[in-house]
């Protein structure tokens, strides 16, 4: 166990979308913290990699950004889901579930020996 898994790109995008759906508009730091917490600290998010991912999602039109003020009265850039982003999240989540289901069947113990 001990080692913490790296996040790969496609998954990171899905996590970002899910986080924004769950928590509503949020800044980059908040998203990073949330992903780390949700993963139960199993994932090492290099916060820096988050920003290109956010930019990519924004260029693709799945999220939009806006400068706002944080709880501590600090200026921060807030990201929120767009309609396209919501649809994309549904789609990717479904695909992800299918993939894991299929893999789970493969890895289920004892089946193939039958």
């Amino acid at each position, binding site marked *: 166990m001990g080692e913490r898994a790296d996040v790969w790109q496609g998954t990171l995008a899905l996590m970002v979308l899910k986080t924004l759906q769950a928590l509503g508009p949020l800044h980059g*730091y908040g998203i990073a913290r949330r992903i780390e917490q949700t993963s139960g600290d199993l994932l090492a998010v290099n916060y820096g990699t988050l920003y290109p991912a956010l930019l990519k999602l924004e*260029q693709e039109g799945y999220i939009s950004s806006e400068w706002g003020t*944080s709880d501590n009265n*600090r200026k*921060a*850039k807030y990201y929120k889901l767009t309609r396209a982003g919501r649809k994309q999240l549904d789609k990717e989540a479904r695909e992800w579930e299918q993939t894991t289901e299929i893999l789970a069947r493969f890895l289920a113990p004892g089946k193939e020996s039958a």
Partner: protein
Amino acid sequence: MRQARSWVLRLGELFRKERREKDLAAEIESHLQMHIEDNLRTGMSPEIARREALTKLGGIEQTKENYRDRRGLPQLETILQDLRYAGRMLGKSPGFTTAAVLTLALGIGANTAIFSVVNGVMLKPLPYRQPERLVSLFLHGRETDRGVMGAADFMALDERQGAFEHVAAISPSTIGLTLTGLGSPQMIPGTSVTSDFFSVLGVQPVLGRAFRPQEGKPGGSLSVVVSHHFWEQFLRADPAAVGSSIKLDGKSYSVIGVLPLDFHFGPHNELWPILQLQPAKQRPPYWLLTVGRLKPGISETQAAADASLIAKQVHQQFPLSDDSSIIVVPLKDLMVGDTGEALLILLAAVGFVLLIAVVNVANLHLSRSGSRIHEFAIRSALGAGRRRLICQLLTESLVLAVLGGLLGLALAYGGVRTILALSQDVLPRMEEITVDGRVLSFTATIAIVTGIVFGLVPAVRFSGLPAGRSLKERSRTAASGRSASRLHGALVVAEFSLALVVLTGAGLLIRTLSQLQSVNPGFNSSHVVTALLTLPRERYANAPQVTSFYQQLLGRVKNSPGVEAASITMSLPPNLLELTNPFHAEGKPDTPGQPAPAIGEIPVGTDYFATLGIPLFRGRLFSDQDRSPATHVLVINENMARQYFPDQDPLGTRVQTGEYNPKGEWYTIVGVVGNVKYQGLGEKDQPTMYVPYFDSGWCPWFVREMYVVVRSASAPEKVVSVLQSAALSLDNQLAIAHVRTMDQLLYESVAGSRFRAVLFGVFAALALVLAMIGIYGVMAYSVSQRTHEIGIRIALGAHRTNILQTILREGASLALLGVAIGFVVALALSRTLAGLLFGVQATDAMTLALVAALLLGVALAACYLPARRATRVDPMVALRYE
């Protein structure tokens, strides 16, 4: 979709970098601050809180760099950066840049110009609706490969064929129609066509209408469709002129339509009168050019098979005629004719010039990047990859190529105009020769390809050098290494062999032209003016009317001051033979199975031979005593006497002359004159018969269109006005046309050869200059690189003439090797020129030797300057230099 959207956004980022940079900095900063605050809250010291936040982020600069890569288009930014750098580098060496751009511009410009011509003449579809379905039809039989049709053939086709939407016949009158009633009488170029002509082409008049079927029937009303230009010039561009009448050849035609401004078919035609064909009583004469529009889905082969069946029926109707089939050729092939081959050869030649230009620029580039080797070593030591360096060099050469291409395009615009001026009556479809989209993409393609080609040579060479070595050795010695100079040498060799090929082609074509111009046409051309006169059938219906007109006209002209002699003729030397006729000599059986030989027969006035200075060898010339209707006499040329009467005196022999002699009259040969060229200066001497124009078998039917020839010491304009006023005083409805001096006709008759010789000559000059610049550049560079070595040699006592010889020998051996290789290539390729040559073999030793000597001389001259510079090297300076 999403992909495209993000590409567009990323492209947009190129233009608002600054704002986005600030934005990014602020975002990262706010991220760090929030993280530090959180860390402080957990009790870290400010110092550690900050470090932890930075570590977690993965470094500010890395984050920004990753972000930037995603934000814009890093590849594009690299290219822009390369472009800026290339611009700076080229700006820093204006000499190199100018030389390279000019060289490329010449190469690309010449290619673009010739390609424009090839494109306009050969590649563009014909400017009519669905041109791929347009074809022309020819009789193909024992007597002719590709013969025009008679009225019987065309009318049967028009009536019975099923493979064409429409067919139409064209009467290819070379002369035109006399327009009267609108100012002084004028000859206007025009061609009669049957009623479906415009339906075949799919062309609609812009004003009025095209022909109706009933107008094409005999007895239908005479109508004419006019060109836009004619409408403007003669009908005051008046829309109401449609429906009015004009007088053509003495008959009243109603103007029914005006064609679009850009309509053209064949060379300059202004009038398209209706051609009304009479039902034929016999199959000949053959005089109609037939065109048709294939029905959709019908192939040319099917159409030919279908039409051949109809030709068979026509043959059954006229069993004496040739049993011909019909062949169908694309109309475009007919229009392009045989100019295609010459154009492709020109394109190949100009392609060679471009290759030389490319080699030249590659050489320049190589020398220059040689002196930049240090720079590349440093850049590669600092981490620039091989790919990156190649890209940089390629960008520079592409910038050069694009600049060269743009300038070349400007040259091509001028070049096309010059070519058009030079190619009067040489090229078909001249109206369509323009610099269009296809030409532009051709230019763009060759510019980019040349850029890559000459850029890759130095790029590959220098990017491969190990950085450490070049850094240590410093630039100069590294660049002058053995492999570099071998590469330079190979390029020079290539240049010289290419130049030799182009020069050989030019030499052969120039010799062809000079041979043609020195051909003896068989007559004295100086001080002779010619003009064409057409007598309308209505007013000159019988022989006395025609002969009395000509007698009076020639009488008046001869009596004018300065006129030495004047006469008339149906055919004009050097290349206007109007008619050939089969003949049969008395007492000589025809060779069975072979048609009687058809040779040129020319009705002439009595003084024709005196006017042109054609010598009489035996017997007598025509005289007024021959005017009796029962007298039929002929004068033949020397060639005919030799060919057909080798062992007998032709004088007094009687011959029958073919198709135009229904009564089978016998003609007595009374004289033998010198050979005259009537089928071009390049043709072998042909047998010719002359008949008096007043002969009762010929007059008046065949002699209403005659050339007047006048010998006079006065200025040609004066002779023309004498002729004009004499004609008008006899008949104020006559127009004289096709006014030329004999010398002009001779000059024009070799226009095609001149066109090819001049263009090839220009390309050869370009090739020569480029090769000269090339070898000069390489030798000068080599000398400058070897200053040190030369200095040592001189210091060790080498004589200066030795140095001079060494350098010259080096240059000459490169040139010699190039010339030798070029020799082989030229011998292999010059065969393709054979069809365009006259009086010179494709492998003419003299031309090859001259060309080789010229190239070697040029090479030595180009090497002399650098060689002399080498002898002036001061050993002290050279040695200290290092």
